[in-house]
């Protein structure tokens, strides 16, 4: 089959690789009909996530049709149309039982590696390094889906791929950003990053009844898209974000702050950006935590900072004094996709939201190398790429 393989820093190739086979009893093989490139794939593309190997198949946002099931599967059969959550979760361990499927205790065969870097291991993810499992991803013609009877969400054929594909990651991830921030009626929320996940965080805040949402980015078309959803916008290259946020909120600061950027943030102050960029290049810190710092100092007293942008290792100059003295709360995590999928599918069915609004590029799988470059450079007003095998 054809599959998008990581071949080194800033390099992917679509190659012929063997077809997947059943390795565990609860596996299913899915013939992929739609797959997408995620912002977090760009961290892999830029070589910032450790334990990648040449030839690893990428992709963790995919859906398709079940073509084979393992002997341990009862609730799923050949021909079912499914959307697959990006974390791999068994459904039986303590974490899964509590709905924390991004922390499944059984899915990562390389948990020992993750423990060395992170202390304890989270769940394995599709196509996201060996430390997180060494599972091939879904930017391919076929994928093996472990624990498919627990993970894969059946979707009837009346909804097109483009409306349900993002249930695999970015819609639930954005929604969890709002959920962790306990966003509700009357809230003023600031969302850093108007990429696809940021867009879904903004939309989710409104779904949950937020009164005002302020989107922060520097790319015009992304800010325009946020405005269409109802957000006010700030271009951080033209204003000081903490000052502007204070001004827009009567000096209080936003009640809730969502970091939808993560470890590769940019900063308008060139010197500060150079400081973190240099340390990152030298391996002295893994993150460029501009957004995290800004979110903490901007947040209203007693507010909540919610982190859904991906971080990998260690961060410098965290404003702990501001965080502690002002009674802030921080929540962070990879999304427990399984937990949110059914309710978000219902929102889609009800017509509360049409997730396809973020798609700007539709390309064949073989164009993945070009698509990665375009998405990285945010060229051609690129917001979200969907690939078709």
């Amino acid at each position: 089959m054809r599959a998008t393989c990581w071949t080194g820093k800033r390099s992917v190739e679509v190659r012929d690789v063997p077809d997947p086979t059943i390795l565990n009893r609860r596996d299913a093989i899915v013939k992929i009909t739609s797959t997408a490139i995620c912002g977090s794939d760009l961290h892999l593309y830029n070589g910032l996530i450790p334990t990648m190997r040449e030839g690893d198949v990428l992709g963790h946002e995919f859906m398709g049709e079940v073509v084979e099931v393992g002997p341990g599967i009862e609730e799923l059969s050949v021909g079912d149309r499914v959307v697959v959550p990006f974390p791999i979760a068994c459904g039986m361990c303590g974490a899964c039982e509590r709905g924390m499927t991004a922390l499944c205790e059984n899915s990562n065969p390389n948990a020992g590696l993750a423990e060395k870097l992170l202390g304890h291991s989270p769940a394995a993810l599709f196509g996201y390094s060996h430390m997180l499992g060494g599972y091939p991803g879904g930017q391919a013609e076929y994928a093996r889906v472990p624990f498919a009877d627990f993970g894969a969400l059946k979707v009837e054929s009346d909804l097109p791929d483009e409306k349900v594909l993002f249930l695999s990651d970015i819609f639930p991830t954005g929604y969890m950003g709002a959920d962790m921030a306990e966003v509700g009626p009357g809230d003023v929320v600031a969302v850093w990053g108007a990429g696809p996940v940021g867009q879904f965080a903004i939309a989710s805040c409104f779904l949950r009844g937020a009164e005002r949402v302020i989107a922060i980015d520097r790319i015009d078309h992304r800010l325009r898209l946020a405005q269409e959803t109802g957000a006010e916008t700030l271009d951080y290259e033209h204003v000081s974000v903490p000052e502007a946020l204070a001004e827009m909120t009567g000096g209080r600061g936003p009640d809730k702050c969502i970091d939808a950027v993560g470890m590769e943030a940019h900063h308008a102050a060139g010197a500060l950006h150079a400081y973190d960029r240099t340390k990152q290049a030298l391996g002295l810190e893994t993150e460029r935590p501009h957004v995290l710092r800004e979110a903490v100092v901007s947040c209203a007293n007693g507010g909540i900072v919610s982190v859904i942008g991906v971080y990998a290792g260690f961060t410098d100059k965290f404003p702990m004094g501001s965080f502690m003295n002002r009674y802030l709360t921080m929540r962070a995590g990879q999304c427990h996709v399984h937990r949110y999928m059914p309710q978000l599918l219902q929102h889609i069915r009800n017509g509360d939201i049409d997730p396809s609004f973020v798609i700007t590029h539709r390309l064949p799988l073989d164009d993945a190398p070009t698509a990665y470059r375009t998405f990285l450079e945010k060229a051609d007003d690129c917001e979200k790429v969907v690939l078709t095998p």
Partner: protein
Amino acid sequence: MRAELSGGRTAGRDTADDLARGLGVLSLALGSAELAAPSAVARLAGVRTGGPTVQAVTSLYGARELVQGAGILSGRGTARWVWSRVVGDVLDVGTLAVGAARRGAAPARLGWSLAALAGVTAADVMTARGLSRRSGAAASGVRAVAAITVNRPRAEVYRHWRDLEHLPEFMAHLRPVSTDGSGSSHREAAGPAGSTIRGDAEIVEDRENEIISWRSVKDADVQNTGSVRFLQAAGGRGTEVVVELRYRPPGGRVGAVVAKLLGEEPNQQLRDDLRHSKQVLEIGEVVRSEGSPAGQSTRRQLAQRPAQPVA
């Protein structure tokens, strides 16, 4: 202070302790001299012309000697401190040779210095070996401990472990086990660097739902004792399984260090095995990814396949 073993002190112990104390004092004296008058010490050792580099290096070595002296005399980790002196000796000889070659030497003085250094090195090695042997004898081999929480009732987890035939399903480095009905079992374990260790174990304690402990019988290749305890996890989270192993690794301490370098850190290996057992109990099989088709194994993680379907 170290507690003395019963039966009196042997002559060997006295010698090693006294020597160590002497070496500690020597370190302090030499270190003070090197710091106070670096040029004079260098000249005395045979290096003819001084200079800022000679002064700096000699002072630095003086500081090193002071730290080592204090370390040895502190009475904690003495063996390690004396071994650090051996490393220092090698540095001294090398530096002296280089210094003499670059800056010209007084041949007689250089000869005497090198001879003295050789003598001191011999004393250091002898003392360090004596101390290491003693601490090696005091500790009973390698100890590995690991714990995991299994989302299953205690009785079920206990039964699974008690049925030794289940062991090979998850003990990645324990090969097939056969029970002969007398409470003893035969097992083969994969040892360091692919060697196979054959050993027979017998159960010494077996309290239902609480603990199973075993020890190897006399003629086992690797003498070992072990226990697995079963505890109720707080908040209805199932069973906490705590395994403790003590064994004398083949090849002694050196063997243990080599195994560690090869990624076979005993705690890690044990954790991998426990994760296998958790997977078998919770989901009925060992989880495989294309990068790690054999499941959990820290050793294999160093040489993984790419995350690509297995042909």
